[in-house]
């Protein structure tokens, strides 16, 4: 079993109200100097069997069609997680 990680972020030109709210809360906790926060999503897809190129291609397709909405989000990274030691 292997795990594929999919990272989705709001498009740079789309205002990210959640990230903005998190950013506004940081100074209240004493974390100064953070210029901007943007909030995205990480999906962990645990796969039966080996991660072949075909499997990765399918995951990329799922990332573009279901896991993200290309109107407002970008799939920034699809990677295979390192096996735990």
């Amino acid at each position, binding site marked *: 079993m292997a795990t594929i990680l999919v990272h989705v972020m*709001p498009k740079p*030109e*789309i*205002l990210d*109200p*959640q990230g903005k*709210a998190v950013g506004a809360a940081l100074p209240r906790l004493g974390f100064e100097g953070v210029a901007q926060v943007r909030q995205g999503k990480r999906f962990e897809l645990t796969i039966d069997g080996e991660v072949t190129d075909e499997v990765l291609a399918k995951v990329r397709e799922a990332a573009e069609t*279901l*896991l993200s*909405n290309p*109107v*407002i989000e970008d799939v920034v990274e699809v990677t295979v997680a390192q096996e735990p030691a």
Partner: protein
Amino acid sequence: MTARIGVVTFPGTLDDRDAARAVRLAGAEAVNLFHADADLKGVDAVVLPGGFSYGDYLRAGAIARFAPIMEKVVDAAHGGMPVLGICNGFQVLTEVHLLPGSMIKNEHLHFICRDQTLRVENAETAWTTEYQDGEEIVIPLKNQDGQYVADESTLDMLEGEGRVAFRYVGWNPNGSRRDIAGITNERGNVVGLMPHPEHAVEAGFGPDSREAGRTGTDGLAFFTSAIKGLLATA
């Protein structure tokens, strides 16, 4: 002949009962359609009501898009059947690509619930013929993910083709691009909007009107528009 208008219930839909009631008050038969149904039971039009289908998990409307009933709704919409998406139903219509753009969290981050004034910008869609172009109506608005966004070229296209169906009047409650409250497709049979016409169809239960409290019925003409169009082509 009585027009038959289907109202789809997804897991997490809230306003299906009100939408069905609005359909009946407007003079049509309301037909309950379930997300897992594989056919539209021969209806003449479809309403995708508001709520939180599938808990709004992933993105609002993102999972409802893949419900079995949606494949039939998309086919029927491409064939010209009137389809109205209200609030979460509008979000589903964008996710399934029947309408362009998308909705993100409100600019001010708060859930908002209020009586909202809209301007009808296109009185030629299947759901707006009983209004006048430029008419101002008041219907309830209630959402958290109601900020309509699309890229500039899509917005220009919508404006250029008269496909902005409704615009917020006064304060923009969501931060929507260009004050857009609702849009239509090229053919005018598919309409989506964030505010709720089905909650303004019967005196005593609607928004306040100029005359008295809770007497506003400005939403009823959505449904009578569709029914009139269906009966004219029957």
